[in-house]
């Protein structure tokens, strides 16, 4: 075993990674493009649906609840493939990029709905009552009281969802969207530079994921509520 490992280390070809830097960079950009839309989209969906769920707005709240359960209890990979092959059958012509951002947005939106709902519901009733006592309308109370406090409570868990959204872009290999995993896996399948390509994948994903995790810890300390609620 030691023998094998020495061979692998000796054979690790850093120059090969450098030679393929442009292709890998393109893949990384595609990953980030899909992830950026996915994060922004799931933020908007989560905020609106989470608010509707927490405020128990009739109909929208129930639809939101069903949406969350369906997405959370089915595999995202099947959702991606369902959209990719199913939408054209319904008459919508879609390319891989559209399905890429759409599928991860729908997925992240469902998880974020739960994050924001939990955050808004964690705001104590007495704070909202204080808002009403000041003559705020329900909407004003939400914007001025529930949103800033509940939003802070929801922030760490929502960043965790964004991390998952980013990691889920790797599943887009199934619809051959040319993101980082698809590109690196393609290169190694043709050249047998397995260790080089997976080293790139591990380093890139861990760098992004660990940075975001560190951000959670930083924000948790910074945004800790001045008054314990």
């Amino acid at each position, binding site marked *: *075993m030691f*023998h*094998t490992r020495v061979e692998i280390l000796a054979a690790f070809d850093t120059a090969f990674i450098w030679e393929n830097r442009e292709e890998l960079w393109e893949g990384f950009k595609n990953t980030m493009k899909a992830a950026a839309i996915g994060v922004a989209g799931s933020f908007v969906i989560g905020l609106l649906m989470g608010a509707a769920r927490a405020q128990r707005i009739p109909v929208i709240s129930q639809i939101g609840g069903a949406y969350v*359960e*369906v997405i*959370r*209890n*089915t*595999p*995202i*990979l*099947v*959702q991606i*493939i*369902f959209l990719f*092959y*199913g939408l*054209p*059958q*319904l008459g919508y012509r879609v390319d891989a990029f559209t399905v890429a951002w759409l599928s991860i947005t729908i997925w992240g939106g469902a998880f974020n709905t739960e994050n924001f709902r939990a955050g808004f519901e964690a705001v104590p009733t007495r704070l909202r009552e204080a808002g009403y006592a000041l003559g705020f309308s329900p909407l004003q109370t939400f914007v001025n009281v529930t949103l800033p406090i509940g939003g802070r409570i929801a922030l760490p868990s929502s960043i965790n969802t964004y991390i998952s959204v980013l*990691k*889920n872009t*790797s*599943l887009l*290999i*199934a619809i051959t969207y040319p993101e980082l*995993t698809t590109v690196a*896996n393609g290169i*190694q*399948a043709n050249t*047998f530079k*397995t260790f080089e390509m*997976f080293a790139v*994948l*591990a380093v890139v*994903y*861990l760098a992004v*994921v*660990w940075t975001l*995790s560190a951000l959670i810890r930083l924000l948790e300390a910074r945004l800790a509520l001045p008054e314990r609620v």
Partner: protein
Amino acid sequence: MPEIPDWFRPVAEYMLREGLPETLKIAAVAVTASTLIGLVLGTLMTINFLPLRSVIRLYIEVWRGIPILVTVLFIYWLPAFELGPFRVQMNAYASAAVGLTLWGSAQVAEATRGAVRSIPKEQHEAAAALGLGWIGRHVFVIVPQALRRLLPPMVGLLVNIIQNTTIAFVIGVSELLETGNRQFENLTLQTGNGHPFTIFGFVLVVFFIISFPLTLLARYLERRLV
């Protein structure tokens, strides 16, 4: 009530007969292995010995940080290597199970660490007073109590792993999604219409029927036990 079309019955039967058992088998292996490895690593992590803690922390952060698909692909493409007297070459099935286990055990380890930490130190002292050593204290007293707190996240993990078995589709394991995809391709070749909406919709429905009751169970346990 819409009619069930003729083509659907054999397709669904094939998927449930060939694909579903594979899905459940991979999930069972991965959940069992994840639980065992995760419980041990998580408990070891509560020992106040920095090098050991750091190594396990690294294990957790690496396998949680890398997308499961990337781990599975890496194991799958790994060239054959020698492990003592054995020559190891991972097939697709084993690659999926091992990849899921690396991720799952990291999740269990993190949850176990918290659960074991939450057991009051009087329990440790009482067990020590009975003459139990570190291993005896943990195996007979501390971890069994921690398991109660671990039950809801463990059911959640089961749901996650069942859903993530679909990753094995990418490397060609005949699990539920792969068998569905095969039927979709066959129908496309034979009739020109692969019925992707119905077939992949059916895959979604099967996963939902399995996962939703488990999700409700996890929620119930969380309210009951914590």
